[in-house]
């Protein structure tokens, strides 16, 4: 069957290449690089605009993708792993040779809003332009002004780690036809200003849906927005964000959501893995009214369908009993014997979306890796969890995770030893 998929991909590509050529042909008019910009150099130097841009750049978390571990901020070089291969991020400091030094605002707008590079090439959607397209022109201008105000860093691009057919950028035409709708956010006049601000931030700059929705085999998101999904290759599960019935945040109050985004820890759970990074470099710096707006929007997400009952877990079995023993010996001191946690210190495990996620991924990895919630102004000296990778066997991790998914009010299916084996070897990028 593999050959069939390959054939389909090939045909799609051929059509796409032709279509892509036509599409790009239509773009070579006044927006071509080299033409003079409508935005004056003086505008870009306006300190008020730059200050606003700095804040918006933080909200968009541009720094976390566009900075390599230990590298200069915004100078690119971080490798983003995808099921199709590795995609390096470019340098977006204003260096003339290797960054955005020669870019006009029009070029930048086309990248952010249309996902098209300076030479007319399609950009890979590992760059969250599927969300950033909702950002309005004023905000994009402010971000551009801020990026252009940074000290230029000379750092050439790393080579693309994709092989045929994915290294053919024209092939993205088909992908775009399926998964990309270009367009600035349109306010809903029946909703409050705060709700609209929240929707604008969540759907646009905050690009929450890039992680918090399932991706298809082709890497697109057609799933219900913010309904939760697995982040491919990186192997984390970003939970459903509805706080109503059967939502991933069921029972979370406005304060809980604000606490998580601002402090990295809430009474209902702590941020870890990729979400810890999002909090550390972005949401902790958001203004209180923006955090509240995001919360108002998230709390308006509809209730979700009840999940199918977990069914007869290989429960009551030796596995769950073994898990209960491990829990009492190694976990209950911190998370409490009924999984209730300690407010502000240790997250509860009863009713925790990261314990109950459909894949079991987060709980397995949390147990293997342990760790600290991010340090934030509101939680500058967080408590931590020891990693259990070197202490518990695959079978024991599977047992304790199956136990916490099943104990108290929790009712999620057991996890398998082979999953633990697999995630034990997921690289931490």
């Amino acid at each position: 069957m593999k050959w069939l998929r390959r054939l389909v991909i090939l045909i799609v590509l051929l059509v796409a290449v032709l279509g892509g050529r036509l599409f790009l042909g239509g773009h070579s008019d006044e927006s071509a690089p080299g033409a003079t910009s409508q935005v004056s150099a003086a505008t870009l130097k306006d300190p008020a605009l730059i200050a606003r841009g700095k804040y918006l750049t933080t909200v968009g978390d541009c720094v976390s993708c566009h900075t390599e571990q230990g590298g200069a901020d915004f100078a690119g070089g971080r490798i983003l792993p995808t099921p199709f291969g590795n995609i390096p991020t470019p340098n977006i400091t204003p260096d003339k040779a290797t960054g955005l030094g020669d870019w006009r605002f029009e070029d930048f707008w086309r990248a952010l809003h249309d996902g098209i590079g300076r030479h007319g090439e399609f950009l890979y959607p590992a760059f969250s332009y599927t969300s950033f397209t909702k950002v309005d022109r004023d905000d994009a201008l402010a971000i551009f002004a801020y990026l252009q105000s940074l000290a230029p860093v000379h750092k050439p691009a790393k080579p693309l780690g994709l092989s045929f057919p994915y290294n053919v950028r024209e092939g993205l035409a088909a992908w775009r036809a399926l998964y990309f709708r270009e367009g600035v956010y349109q306010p809903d006049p029946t909703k409050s200003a705060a709700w609209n601000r929240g929707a604008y931030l969540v759907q646009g700059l905050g690009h929450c849906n890039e992680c918090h929705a399932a991706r298809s085999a082709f890497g697109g998101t057609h799933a219900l927005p913010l309904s939760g999904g697995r982040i491919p290759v990186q192997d984390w599960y970003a939970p459903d964000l509805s706080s109503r019935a059967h939502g991933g945040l069921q029972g979370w109050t406005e304060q809980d959501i604000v606490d998580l985004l601002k402090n990295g820890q809430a009474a209902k759970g702590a941020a870890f893995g990729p979400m810890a990074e999002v909090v550390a470099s972005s949401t902790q710096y958001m203004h209180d009214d923006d955090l509240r707006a995001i919360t108002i929007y998230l709390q308006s997400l509809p209730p979700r369908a009840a999940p199918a009952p977990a069914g007869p877990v290989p429960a009551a079995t030796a596995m769950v009993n073994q898990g209960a023993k491990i829990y009492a010996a190694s976990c209950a001191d911190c998370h409490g014997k009924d999984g209730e946690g300690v407010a502000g210190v240790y997250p509860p495990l009863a009713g925790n979306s990261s314990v109950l996620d459909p894949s079991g991924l987060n709980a397995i990895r949390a147990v293997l890796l342990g760790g600290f919630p991010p340090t934030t102004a509101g939680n500058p000296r967080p408590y931590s969890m020891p990693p259990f990778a070197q202490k518990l066997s695959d079978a024991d991790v599977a047992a304790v995770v199956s136990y916490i998914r099943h104990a108290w009010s929790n009712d999620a299916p057991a996890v398998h030893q082979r999953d633990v084996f697999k995630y034990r070897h997921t690289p931490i990028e």
Partner: protein
Amino acid sequence: MNVRIGEVQTVEVGSSHRRGAGGAVLTAVLAILLAWLSPLRAAAPGDNAAPQVPDTLQQRIAACTSCHGVHGEGSPGSGFFPRLAGKPAGYLARQLMYFHDGLRKYAPMEYMVRSLSPAYMREIAEYFAAQQVPYQRSQVPHLPATTLQRGEQLVTQGDPALKVPACERCHGKSLTGVEPDIPGLVGLPYDYISSQLGSWRTGTRAAAAPDCMSEIANRLTPTDISAVAAWLATRQLPADTHALPAGSVTPPLVCGVLAGKGGDGT
């Protein structure tokens, strides 16, 4: 509360035992009473109460101590989880930053410190720097006497032919390190020393440029690495294992981590 105080009096008054035994009972009851009255207990409304969490750094860094030991004593024997106790704070804080920035590679450490602030890392480093725990003997492979002599030569005199300066010219005559940036070399296990020197050769450990330790590790042959590691691991510990005061050495090579100080040639 009154009832409990009454119990104490009953014990005291009604005791027909010898004074010593009565005293012991009294002490025990008082201890229970004190425990009952202590703030931790008082905060707990009932037996089902949430566990009490000490507000200490030691409790906060349970993750670190689960590998490195409560006092940073490290894992006995191999030192696979290295000792942190008593190493200079500046050195430890910098290592945490290096794991954060990927200059030093070890995935569990990188994940641990990924979203910690420099201020918190510094506080944690100071905790471990202040710990005092005795050093433990570690396993050393059986090596010929000539190899150990070679190790001694490298540590105390260096090898001009290989352009390797004597280790003690930076790590201090006592080899206990120098405040605030240079760690000691005595008391470290053979496996740890040889694997760290190996990491500098393979690039999984690095320090600010110019990385003097990387230069040195790359000038040593694998047999030399075994030799220094073995000689160092078999040293008797000096009575005072504290790092020497700042400024005790003049480094013969330029080291980025020493803010470029040193470099008066080998």
